[in-house]
Every structure is written in structure tokens, then in C-alpha cells.
């Protein structure tokens, strides 16, 4: 077999820092992921001026793990369909039901329908749960970092943690422009540190997520065995937060990222 000179391992040849291709946290049921099911809207709850939670009854829902998402489909009467991926906000304990928290996206074809037309009794279609990569079964200490509606899959983890009375360490850093835009504000407890980027209550600093908030969690407050980090938000936020984590010493193969395209 012929080998070229560049085939030998030259000094300075890049060595991948990690095997990123760690397996997903759970196996996904292919059958469930392939099947469209009817979801009936049962309740709409306002969370912030721009986000609401939509609760659905899905009697055949096989269950999910916190952090997983689904695909949702709307169909017009001429057969035109629109489908989008959404993270699941509700915990798996909420059997037969799922909740999604959606931002009202400017000009959003699907979110626009939800925020202006949807009402209890309406039916949509869902398939899932999808992707085990971002799932958290509640086994390892979890450091959650989210911004805006990026907190949605992380909230499923917090709710799961509470409903199961888990003792495995869980921390959430959640970024919002101001207190009125903090989704699920009333539900947070001691595990959560809000970060306000534009407006904050009196005495609370204003500014983007910083090393001063991340570094202590990876030093003094790091649990034995370290954190599994879950980052969710816009791409800009995910880049910023993941770099802070790496700078603070979090191994890159223990950072899971869900970016909003």
C-alpha cells in the first residue's frame, strides 16, 4: 500500500480534542418518532408579554425525557403544511399531556397561529419525542444555562427534578432581558440564578452572563464527578455560554447544546 508523506503523523498534526460523538442519553423509539398523533389544545397560559404556554392532551403520548423536543405540524385546508421543532416544557410525569412554551415570533407562520388564533379544543399534530442527545434522565448533576425561551427544555428538567424529589445537584442560570420577560419566573427556587441583560430589579446588576457567574459553579460549587452542562438559546447566546463554560474548565464533551436556528 502506497503511503504519502503527509500520511505519517507529523508534529503539530491536529488531534481532535474529544470524541464528541458521545451516545445520546437515551435510545429514541423510532416508531414513536415516525408517528403523527393528534394533540388537542386544552389550555393557554400567558407567561410573559411575548411568550405563552400551550397545554395539549395527547392520549397516545409514549412519554419523553426532560430536554427532548417534538415536531409539530399545522395543516391548511388546501393541504399546505408547516412543521417546526419545539422543546417540551412539561415533565414526563405529566402523563398524557405535553406543554410547549412558544415565543410570538415576528411574522411567525406557526407561532403566529398559536398566539392569535389558537384556543382550547383546537387540534394540531405532533410526532416525537425526538433526539435523546439533549435529554437528561435525572441521573447526573446538571448545570443548565438558558436564555429567553431557551429555558423551555431546561424547565422540563427542573420540574422532573422536583416531582421526583431528586437529590442530584441541579443548577440553572437563566438569562432574560428583564424581569417581565423571565419565563416561568414564579416557579424558580434556590437552584436558579436569573441574569438580566437590560433591566433588573433594584439592587440586581444588569449585564450579560459572565465568567463571574459561571466560574464559581465549576470551582467551589462543582459536585463530585462534575457537571453535565446543558446550554439552550439563540446561537449567539449558545456560543457565548459554551465559551464561558470551556474557559471555566468544563470539558467540551460534557457540554450539550440546543441552538435555536
Amino acid at each position, binding site marked *: 500500500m502506497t503511503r504519502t508523506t503527509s*500520511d505519517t503523523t507529523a508534529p503539530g498534526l*491536529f488531534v481532535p480534542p474529544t470524541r464528541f*460523538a458521545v451516545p445520546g442519553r437515551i435510545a429514541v423509539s423510532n416508531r414513536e418518532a415516525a408517528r403523527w398523533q393528534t394533540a388537542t389544545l386544552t389550555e393557554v397560559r400567558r407567561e410573559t408579554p411575548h411568550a405563552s404556554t400551550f397545554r395539549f392532551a395527547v392520549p397516545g403520548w409514549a412519554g419523553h425525557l426532560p430536554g427532548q423536543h417534538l415536531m409539530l405540524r399545522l395543516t*391548511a385546508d388546501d393541504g399546505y403544511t408547516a412543521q417546526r421543532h419545539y422543546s417540551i416544557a412539561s415533565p414526563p410525569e405529566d402523563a398524557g399531556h405535553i406543554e410547549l412554551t412558544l415565543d410570538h415570533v415576528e411574522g411567525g407562520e406557526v407561532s403566529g397561529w398559536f398566539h392569535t388564533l389558537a384556543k382550547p379544543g383546537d387540534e394540531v399534530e405532533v410526532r416525537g419525542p425526538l433526539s435523546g442527545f439533549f435529554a437528561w434522565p435525572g441521573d447526573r448533576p446538571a448545570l443548565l444555562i438558558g436564555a429567553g425561551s431557551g429555558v423551555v427544555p431546561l424547565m422540563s428538567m427542573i420540574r422532573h427534578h422536583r416531582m421526583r424529589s431528586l437529590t442530584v445537584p441541579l443548577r440553572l442560570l437563566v438569562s432574560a432581558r428583564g424581569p417581565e420577560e423571565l419565563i416561568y419566573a414564579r416557579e424558580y427556587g434556590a437552584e436558579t440564578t436569573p441574569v438580566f441583560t437590560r433591566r433588573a430589579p433594584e439592587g440586581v446588576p444588569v449585564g450579560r452572563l459572565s465568567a463571574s457567574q459561571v466560574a464559581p459553579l465549576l470551582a467551589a460549587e462543582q459536585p463530585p464527578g462534575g457537571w453535565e452542562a446543558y446550554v439552550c438559546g439563540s446561537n449567539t447566546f449558545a456560543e457565548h455560554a459554551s465559551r464561558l463554560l470551556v474557559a471555566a474548565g468544563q470539558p467540551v464533551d460534557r457540554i450539550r*447544546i440546543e441552538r435555536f436556528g
Partner: protein
Amino acid sequence: MNVTRGFTGRPRVQNAGLPPGQYDAGDDWPVLSAEVTPDLTPADWSFRIDGLVAAPRTWDWAEAHALPASAYEGDIHCVTSWSKFGVRFGGVSLDAFLEAARPDASATHAVAYSHTGYTTNLPLADLTGGRAWIAWEYEGQPLPAEHGGPARLLVPHLYFWKSAKWIAGLRLLDHDEPGFWEQNGYHARGNPWEEQRYSGD
């Protein structure tokens, strides 16, 4: 058909280039990767072809750029349902690399792997015949890191998770071996025109 009350959707645009279930993302180019964007410079980058080939080899940045330039101008489609029209990538046709490595007759599939360890599987037939590239330019500029720069695989006729960012190599096999998302429930091939999104589609 399960009609959603009151849903009309966007005005229908007659666009023959839009696969079923997709929408036109316009100027947006969403970033969808589950990993930390690596700090990978052209000097760090290399691309290797091995496995069932007569001449396994590794190209560095300069060696890869010495191959004949080849551009793609056309559309890309993401499984999350956006498509992007008329994008221009510059790089080298994968045929030029494969020609040098000389695949064995027994090679039927490839696993593409990235410098971060991401993997994705492809039939070899989807990588040959001018249908796949190693791309390092986007719209005439260096490919941004968050989109896979300095160089990514480009297989535009399949869903874009097949176009591995930060491409490090191809391993040729005589069987199909699921990659990262394929192990996580996504389809083995990912043809947008057949809506091969998830395993079982």
C-alpha cells in the same frame, strides 16, 4: 388530512426547489450544532480518507487547496424544515480526493467524521459524481467557524446534518454504520425530496 382550524400559512410561493415540509429561510442561515464550536485554524485542519481505499492519505490545508477548485451554487435543506436558496460555496469536489485515495470495489458507504468527533454516515454513491465537496468558502468569503469553517463537507442534495462541519475525514466501509444523529433517531440517508427525516420515514 387533519386541517388546523384557521391556519392558512404563508402565501404559497410556486417554488419547485422547495422539498415537501420545508420553508424558505430567506437570508437567515440558522446554526444548528450540538457541540461547542472548535477553535480550528487552517493550520490545524487536515482531511483524511481511509478505510477501504487503495491509497489512504491525509491532506493538509495547502495540499487540499492545490487540488482543482470546484464551486457549488444551489440550495440547501435542513431537517428542522428550513431551506436556503441560491447559496454559493467554494472548495474542491470530493471526487478529486477520492480519485487520489482510490476506493476499493467493495466500498459502499462512508462515515464522515469531524475534528470534534461528530460523525455521519453516507452511501458512497451520494459522495461521488460531482455531488459532494469539501467547502471552505461561503459567498466568496472564508467559511465562518460556526458554519463549519475552516472546512466542512457539503452534500447539498441531502439534509444538511450530513454535511459534517469541521470535516476531518471519511472512512470507507462495505456496510452502513449510523453516525451521531442517526444513532439519535434520524434517517440513515436523509433525502429531503422523500422527507427522510427520522428513522422509519
